[in-house]
């Protein structure tokens, strides 16, 4: 690692910092949207900032054990890792700091590190609801990922690459070069899979936040929870960035950074909004429902996309 550019660490930290802020704002906006749709006032836009800071500021003397302790660490490492492995802005080395470490396969699998750590941490808490949430989440994600895997294969074949930067590069020039238009079926499949991983209705039985505390974080509070919340701010953003890169032409670096960020915000926001939109429109699925659902249309669409690229490329 002699030729390692240590500035990358700084860039990575910057990326994470900016993303956290962006994620918090996004959360606020979405919270507002949710409330307004339900004819409520809703939170202030900056409420997530407040929540996060408050959580970081509280202390706890409670630990359920080593793995409990490590759960949030794993979780946040996983989320942040994805972020810095991703080439966020095409052509900007600052925002693709560690993307040299691996391609989209790496990112797809690295995503599970946090999930696993969280699951284990929640597991050690000894709370049955934590384990219940994990079991539901795992069950659901296995099926939700099927169309995603299909879409990934589809576009990898389409672009003859697993390199995200190359995939983004191939979509430059015109919006007609976006995968959305060159391979709409794969995009459709992936966007359905996207729903399954965003922890929003109809696939939010994993956390089921409204009725009872359930899911891995059940036993977490104060700074443990703070770390998890931080991750919750960056993880969806990282995920949307990935989707933007895959299907919506990515975000290229314009001469003007402001314009670049604007495009970035717009694209990620819209992609994020897709899950919000669906979440607001549909009631919650039980896990077995969602499994069956994913095995129907999304999988079918995914299959078509695979056959499509198999014929076309």
């Amino acid at each position, binding site marked *: *690692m002699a030729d390692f550019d240590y500035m990358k*660490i700084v860039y990575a930290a910057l990326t994470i910092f900016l993303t956290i802020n962006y994620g918090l704002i996004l959360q606020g906006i979405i919270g507002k949207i949710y409330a307004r749709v339900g004819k409520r006032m809703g939170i202030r836009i900056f409420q997530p900032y407040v929540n996060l800071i408050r959580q*970081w500021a509280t*202390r*706890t*003397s*409670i*630990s*359920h*054990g*080593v*793995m409990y*302790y490590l759960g*949030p*660490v*794993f979780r946040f490492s996983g989320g*942040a*890792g994805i972020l810095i492995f991703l080439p966020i802005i095409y052509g900007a080395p600052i925002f693709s700091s*560690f993307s*040299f*470490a*691996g*391609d*989209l*396969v*790496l990112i797809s*699998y*690295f995503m599970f*590190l946090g*999930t*696993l750590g969280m*699951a*284990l941490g929640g*597991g050690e808490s*000894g*709370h*049955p*609801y934590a*384990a*219940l949430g994990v*079991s539901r989440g795992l*069950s659901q*994600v296995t099926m939700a*990922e*099927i169309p995603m*895997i*299909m879409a990934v*294969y589809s576009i*990898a074949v389409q672009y003859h*690459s*697993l*390199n995200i930067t190359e995939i983004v590069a191939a979509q430059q020039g015109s919006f007609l070069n976006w995968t959305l238009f060159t391979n709409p079926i794969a995009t459709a499949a992936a966007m359905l899979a996207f729903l399954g991983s965003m922890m929003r209705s109809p696939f939010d039985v994993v956390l089921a936040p409204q009725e009872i*505390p359930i899911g891995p974080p059940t*036993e977490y509070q104060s*700074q443990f929870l703070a*770390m998890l919340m931080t991750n919750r701010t960056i993880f969806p953003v990282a995920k949307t960035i990935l989707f933007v890169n895959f299907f919506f032409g990515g975000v290229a670096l314009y001469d003007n950074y402001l314009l670049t960020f604007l495009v970035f915000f717009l694209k990620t926001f819209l992609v994020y909004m897709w899950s919000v939109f669906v979440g607001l429109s549909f009631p919650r699925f039980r*896990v077995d429902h969602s*499994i069956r659902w994913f095995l129907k249309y999304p999988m079918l669409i*995914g299959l078509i996309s695979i056959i499509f*690229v198999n014929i076309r490329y």
Partner: protein
Amino acid sequence: MVEPIYLIVIALGAAFLLGLLRKTGSALQIALTLAALAGMVFISAQWAYGIIKGTTQAAEIFTSGMNPPLSINLFMGRSEAVLLLLVNSAAFLSTMYLGREHKKTSVYMLMLLLVFVVGLNGIILTRDLFNLFVFIEIVSIASAGLIALRSDIRQLGAGFKFIIAGALASGFMLIGIIFTYYATGSLNIDVITGMMSPALASAGYIGLFLVFIGIMIELKPFPVNGWGIDAYQASIPPVSALVAAGTATAMFYAFTKITAMTGGIFLNASMYIGALTFVGMNVVALKQTAARRLLGYSSISQVGLLVLVFSLVKIFGIAGGELIVFGLLVSHALAKAVLFWLSGIIGKESINDWGIIRKRNILIVAFAVAVGALLALPPFPSFFAKWELITSLAVKGQYGWIAVILGGALLEAVYLMRWFGNAVKDSFNEEDNLDFRFGTLVPVITGTAALLALGYFSANLSVFENNINWLLPAVVIVLLLLDFLPAIVKNILLIAAIAWYGYPLLQAIEGYRSIFAAIFVIGAVITLLPGFMNKGRRPGFYPAVSMMFAGLVGIIEATDMLTFFFFWELMTLGSYFLILRGKKSKPHALSYMLFSLGGAYLLMTGFSMSFAEAGGTSIALDILKTVSGSSLSGIITILLAVGFMTKTASAGLHIWLPGAHAEAEGDVSPMVSGILLKAGVFGLLMTFIALGDQSIGKINIPYVLSWIGVITALTANYMAAMQEDAKRLLAYSSIAQMGYALFGISLMSHLGWLSALSLAIVHFTYKVILFLSVAGVVHRVKTRNMYQMGGLITRMPVTFFMVLVSIIALSGIPPLAGFSGRWLTYNAVIEKGWLLQGVVAGVSGLIAFLYLFRLIFAIFLGQLKDVHRRVKEAPFWILLPQILLILLVLYLSFFPGAFLRPIGDIVSEFHPEGALVWNGATAVSEFGYWNGEAVMWVFIALFAANFALLFFLNRGAQKIKQFNIVYAAERPARPETTHFAYNMFAPYRKALGFLEYPITTKFWSGVADLMHSIAGFTRRIYTGNGQTYLLQIIVFVVISFLLSNGGK
């Protein structure tokens, strides 16, 4: 050299002399008999030795000073000498065994025994047709007398049936003889042979036919042999042994003489009768539970096999056919004698009561040896004979007969292995006694030792050059002999032996073999370490484990197909014994053995086919390459691939694995799962390296295999997620991982193979760790059900850490080593374009998370049970190998290039295109790139930073009580009800339960049920009524006549 006529003189003289010694004590009588038999053994041994060594010529003996055909002549050649030695030795040993029977039944028994032996010797020696008849009558009368030694009602009934059936058969024979005499004017077999012509065959047809069918009936062909089976069952064991080893041998030899005499006109008939008998008896035997009746079935079926093989050898002019027949015959005779003797020592009627054999370990060894010899497993003569038979048949293109022979052998394996399993596992009444004494023990030991020794010699007699390294089996024998030592000593010895042998091997071996050699040798040493926990002797473990590892090393070293197959079977056998040691592993070990044998037979067929395709001269493994262009190459590929897939437990052939691996002992599971399965991968790789990308018609074989691979992975992962039993979970996981390996190989590309090979290595590491961890846990908590565990992280933190690292590695999550396989698979799939398979593989990878989480959560996290509050960390000797392997996993994770690069170089030999390009630590493929070291560092940095942050902020946190959780304002009642572990993925099961439908199990059990109902139905022909048996014989004669005479 003593004249062979003295064989008859001595025995008869002794028999007559016994008449004078009626009033002396039994000791003298028995001493006289034994002395006479010893003299006969000596004479035959002398001749056998002399003729085989070439110091003695075969001799013709003329009686009455006249030349044949005026007088009766005898002939002592190589076959005769060997058979006489066999028969006389069996007689000597059986007489020794009889000792106790003697008092009750007095001197008559010994007279009959000697007369019996005279008859056997005469049948083998004589060259005169009528004289043959006389000797057959002697044998039949003497054996009918010996059957009734105890004279109970069963013996009398059986003896009477035996004698009337024999009388009928000899009546036919006698008519045949006189008709033959009418047609030829001679009774001398050699003269008739010389006269044989189509004209004579036609004119004397009926005579020749009746002689033939008479001999055939004496051989007890299916289905007209109820009388013979009854005799086997009713006789006292030493007599049955003598009948099985002696009469069957002699009668078979008489059959060969008659066949020669008739100029082979009945070879077709005998071929079909033999085949029918072989298969029919084995089918019928499936339902049998009476030990000696079962042995009777088996004996008759083996004689059927001999008749079939002999006919095939003659019809197709197979070179070296004599050795084939001899190998089978000698193995059968010795093995069957040993089994009958054993049945006497055991003294139990039903095969389900043989558990008592465990009172004496030596008896188990003898039992195993005998069963192995019957099933033609290495190192017995039958193994080499069968190999030569199958290869020769392949050269002649007789694949139908190969199928018949191997299919029948598989049926035989079903009941023999089931019996063996019962004996080793079933409970027994401690108060029952064995008939264990000097006189019974010596025959058993002698027979066992002879089988082992003959195996060694027959390898050298084999027409094929082979490079079997006898050092490896010798280790097994040594450990068997040292079995009285404490386990610790044997463990040290074995580890030392493996290290001593393996170290130079690892240095010398190159290419893809080196990878597997490393897994096998290093794996052997590591997985043997837990053996130090054993304080006792651990009887039987070390021979079995050394046999398995000897087999594994042997297949790596093998350069020819025979050697490969030898060690392949040895490995199977060793692992079978190992698996059988588990507490409830009986049915699983059986199905393991049967699937393995079935697979081995496919391999044998595949090897034989390629041997034949390559010209039938060389059995080097390299000739597989030369047949890759031939028209049969597709079939060869399928045979070999499916054969090896039984070992990797691919979908459809997997049903043995979960039980076998789960029920095995704690330190055996890692061996069979982490190491043994790689033998299948090795074989698959070997197959595809040699044969390449084959198709049958338009069906591409690797394409089909790729689907099998991913479906295996998918269903097995699903099944793993649904298990409550930790070891079954891991077992299913192994199936799935082998599915990936199969998929990788089937991609037939650089990256695909690289993924398969790297998977083989990393799977070895983490699966050994996981099985050992679970073994440690099970050792402490005494259950394998995960929902009964929970919260053990506090009690067994080291084990927890091992499991944690392993499951991350297994799941393929970066930064640990398992990711390399995933990344390579994605690249390889896209390169190949088999996207759908890739999707299935990917999904099954996701499903793997389910069981991995379940494994670690249900055992280590959640609620600690009250009964486990004082559980200790796993013992040192279980932890040590895990620690060693964890270091290896971490090393491979940090520096994936360290193993991917050399493997890549190896793979490039076969698939140079599409290799990875290494750019520093970054692996670059056509599509993507991956820098394992960077990922690792990023992860470590992030992890350390986060951890430091959290630790700094939360430094005051303390561990709180178990039940101090947010529980809807209530206190949870008990850990048992709070631990969420039972049926953990209930919704999943609800949605996807159809995947659990045991389609494969249903299929195979359907096959088994069908065979058993056929058996149950067929065996009703054995009504027990002597008159019916007579009628059956006549029907048999008439039908045979019509069929064989059909062309006329």
